[in-house]
């Protein structure tokens, strides 16, 4: 039973560029959430996708956008990269029906470095 998988594991981009990160949820999960984890900090909620729609959004600018596909996989896109976007980006999956009594399952993240 595969867990949450993310690609790529590491990425180096230049300021102003655009990046796409990918996530496949744990088998049986239909909801994907994305988190940004700066060095030495806790994960910060970016947004959540269910049934191919953005259901909730955290306090992130609209340079951050996402998509969910019919197979429940998801992408996170960041435009006009800033140095401050350097972080570990974590994808987490869950079930929509179990949102209030089941935990998130995280992937190992994509380490994004913006130079």
């Amino acid at each position, binding site marked *: 039973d595969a867990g949450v998988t993310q690609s790529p594991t590491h990425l180096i981009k230049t300021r102003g560029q655009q990046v796409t990160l990918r996530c496949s949820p744990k088998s049986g999960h239909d909801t994907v*959430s994305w988190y940004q984890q700066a060095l*030495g900090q806790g994960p910060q909620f970016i947004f959540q996708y269910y049934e191919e729609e953005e259901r*909730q959004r955290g306090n992130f600018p609209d340079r951050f956008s996402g998509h969910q596909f019919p197979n429940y996989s998801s992408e996170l896109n960041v435009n006009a990269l800033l140095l401050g976007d350097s972080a570990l980006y974590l994808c987490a999956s869950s079930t929509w029906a179990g949102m*209030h009594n089941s935990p998130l399952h995280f*992937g190992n993240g994509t380490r994004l470095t913006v130079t």
Partner: protein
Amino acid sequence: QQQVKQSPQSLIVQKGGISIINCAYENTAFDYFPWYQQFPGKGPALLIAIRPDVSEKKEGRFTISFNKSAKQFSLHIMDSQPGDSATYFCAALRQNFVFGPGTRLSVLP
């Protein structure tokens, strides 16, 4: 009101000792409180979780104590081992999970 506070920032414990990490929250609408363990280069992994209608939950060496009136909850790691050395995050759920800033635990052999 969405913030979850966590202390201490770092903790050093001798092997066999008890590690205690504390969290506090303001939003009484939070209704699920998990703890996550994160090793370097890995994503957070669920350790143990509790709902606010329960005051304590124990799983092996890990115990959550929950004080609803004080809006506080804590993680106790009994018989701490060097393999427990990691960063621990408390979290709280309303519509999405809010994470504390983390506690870096080092267990000395």
